């Protein structure tokens, strides 16, 4: 009798526990989405180096995960050099924009420029976009036994990702690759499953080269993909491409080498087939920057940029700062840091597979920093 009752009690507890476990999992799911979002905290570095004695963090920022490796290096090196400590949380561009709008951070960071409606909702007034480095997106594929890298045109990539071109030996792919024997394999499209700046850049490019793409899936950080599988993170997409013969997908340049993937040469606006590389992306930024009007807010796309040497799938990543800074001391620290990042900091870019800014643009940006005002009227 008593055992039976015990069993009943156990069951009831378990049901309650089961509910609790599943709810806990849901709550923690938001957390696991941010699993990659390591906090790059330069405060620790500065403390170890016995930096200036005040003990706190001087500036806080939040945003994009894509430039986090170089930002982490910058904040660390800058703290070691000047004692100014910057705490950056790589919670994603969306989170960075939200926190900047609410003024809970001193600066934001994003892979996609803020839209006009997002700008309006920023509580601190006009936001200045400051490009820091250029990101390069490669189209990687898995076709064993090809003699040389495959060549793709923009409209062809769009049609592959639209599901209109489904075989590797499609006549249009063959036409762009004379002399290459292509297998009669099915094409498996792999894309990012989560919202990402990489997807934004890639879809920005496809929208620029294909009207069908522009009016279909469009450009954004999350899309409604016509075909394909979703991989989590660059590493997830790279892993799926590496393991699946016939797969094609887009990843950041930094993930190509460690995974030993083949990347496509992509036709730029001058008709040249160009491999993804830092200098070709800097050239793209240069081509786009040359055309900027003097009072630009730097919310500019550099995909399919003019120039014979340019790689067409590239983008700035931006720091977001308020034009009217509420605190003069912080404003000084922030602009000093950005000046350093735009000059000395650029040397770190290539080693981490980012492309440095063209020097002409860096000069323009430094000049623009002088337009920041501190403590002025909102």
């Amino acid at each position, binding site marked *: 009798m008593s055992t039976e009752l015990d069993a009943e009690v156990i069951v009831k507890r378990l049901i309650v526990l089961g509910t609790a*476990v599943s709810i806990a999992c849901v709550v923690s799911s938001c957390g696991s989405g941010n699993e990659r979002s390591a906090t790059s905290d330069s405060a620790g570095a500065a403390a170890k180096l016995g930096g200036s004695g005040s003990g706190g963090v001087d500036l806080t920022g939040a945003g994009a995960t894509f430039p986090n490796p170089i930002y982490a290096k910058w904040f660390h090196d800058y703290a070691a050099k000047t004692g100014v400590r910057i705490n950056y949380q790589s919670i994603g561009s969306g989170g960075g924009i939200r926190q900047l709008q609410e003024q809970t951070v001193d600066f934001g960071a994003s892979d996609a420029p803020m839209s006009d409606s997002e700008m309006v909702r920023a509580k601190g007034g006009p936001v200045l976009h400051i490009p820091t480095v250029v990101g390069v997106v490669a189209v990687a594929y898995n076709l064993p036994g090809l003699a040389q890298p495959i060549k793709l045109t923009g409209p062809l990539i769009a049609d592959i990702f639209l599901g209109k071109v489904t075989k590797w030996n499609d006549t249009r792919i063959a036409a762009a690759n004379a002399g290459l024997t292509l297998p009669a394999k099915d094409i498996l499209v792999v894309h990012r499953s989560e919202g990402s700046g990489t997807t934004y850049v890639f879809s920005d490019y496809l929208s620029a080269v294909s009207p069908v793409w522009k009016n279909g899936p469009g450009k954004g950080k999350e899309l409604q993909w016509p075909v394909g599988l979703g991989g989590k993170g660059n590493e997830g997409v790279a892993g799926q491409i590496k393991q699946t013969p016939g797969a094609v997908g887009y990843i950041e340049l930094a993930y190509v080498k460690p995974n030993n993937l083949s990347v496509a040469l992509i036709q730029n606006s001058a008709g040249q087939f160009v491999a993804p590389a830092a200098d070709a992306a800097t050239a793209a930024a240069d081509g786009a920057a040359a055309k900027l009007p003097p009072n630009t807010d730097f919310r500019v796309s550099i995909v399919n940029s003019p120039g014979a040497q340019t790689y067409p799938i590239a983008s700035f990543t931006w720091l977001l700062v308020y034009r009217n800074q509420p605190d003069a001391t912080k404003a000084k620290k922030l602009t000093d840091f950005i000046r350093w990042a735009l000059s000395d900091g650029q040397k770190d870019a290539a080693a981490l597979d980012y492309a440095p800014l063209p020097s002409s643009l860096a000069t323009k940006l430094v000049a623009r920093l002088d337009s920041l005002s501190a403590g002025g009227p909102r």
Partner: protein
Amino acid sequence: MTDVSAGSALAATPSQESAAVRIHGSSPGDRIYRWTTMGFALIIPILLCLIAWEVFAAGWPALRTFGIGFFTQSEWDAVNGKFGAAPAIFGTLVSSAIALIIATPLAVGVAIFLSEFAPRWLRQPVAFFVDLLAAIPSVVYGLWGILVLVPFLRDHVMPFIKDTMHLGEFPLFSGPAYGYSMFAAGLILAIMVLPYISAVTREVLLAVPRSQREAALALGATRWEMIWDAVLPFARSGIIGGIILGLGRALGETMAVTMVIGNRPEISASIFQPGYTMASLIANEFSEATNDLHVSALMAVGAALFIVTVLVNMIARWLVWQIERAPGA
């Protein structure tokens, strides 16, 4: 919370118990102790209600915009602001169902072996290793899924079922075999929930009184008949409790599933095709959602998961109640 359920279960002796509590409660120290622990206990349901309120309130704009269509539409298009969570709801239920179908017989089998057949020297180590499965972080399961399970499914299991067994035309197994699929997600979940079901079942089986077994054996039952006819019926409500605990884990699991399910918001009859789950959807999109409606839609998915979890648990509770009422329990 435990006290409350124990109190209601022991309905035969409530007056004695409460009288005892009242006598002890008369000293101020005991009273403080009682109120403090009660406060701790109440924090949990209050927290749960606050979370529910927050999720529903944040999801309300999306629910108001799309109405019931939010739960029935399949289109999830963040660029054009169209949100329908049907594929994710479908995926959560199907992947959890696959997990339970695979894990339950295995886990109960393991538990029967450990409680009835295993020699003492084997019982502890095997039980330890099964329990250890629960301690592996889900991202590690996910990595193993990508590196080992998915290629194995794609190169061996799926071709075997489709070609060797000629089931490729059967809707449940149709379509191209990528490996990343609802089936892969269900398999990973099965491994993840197995230790929960098996640990609970083992404890429940060990709690079956010796007299029950001896009575069956005395009536001339074989060992197998004794287990099947005397032990399992006695323990079945406990076993179902263990399955529900596993189900709770499966419904909410995020990381490992996201890594192997293919993340495609589509409802397909074939378990070899990619799918999506509610938890994966939230985890994937929340960090980069800037548009208000998009954030709200993700919160509404959270609310939907909340509702699904509560509904499934209510059904399970009803099931246990039905079994307890049945003769022989």
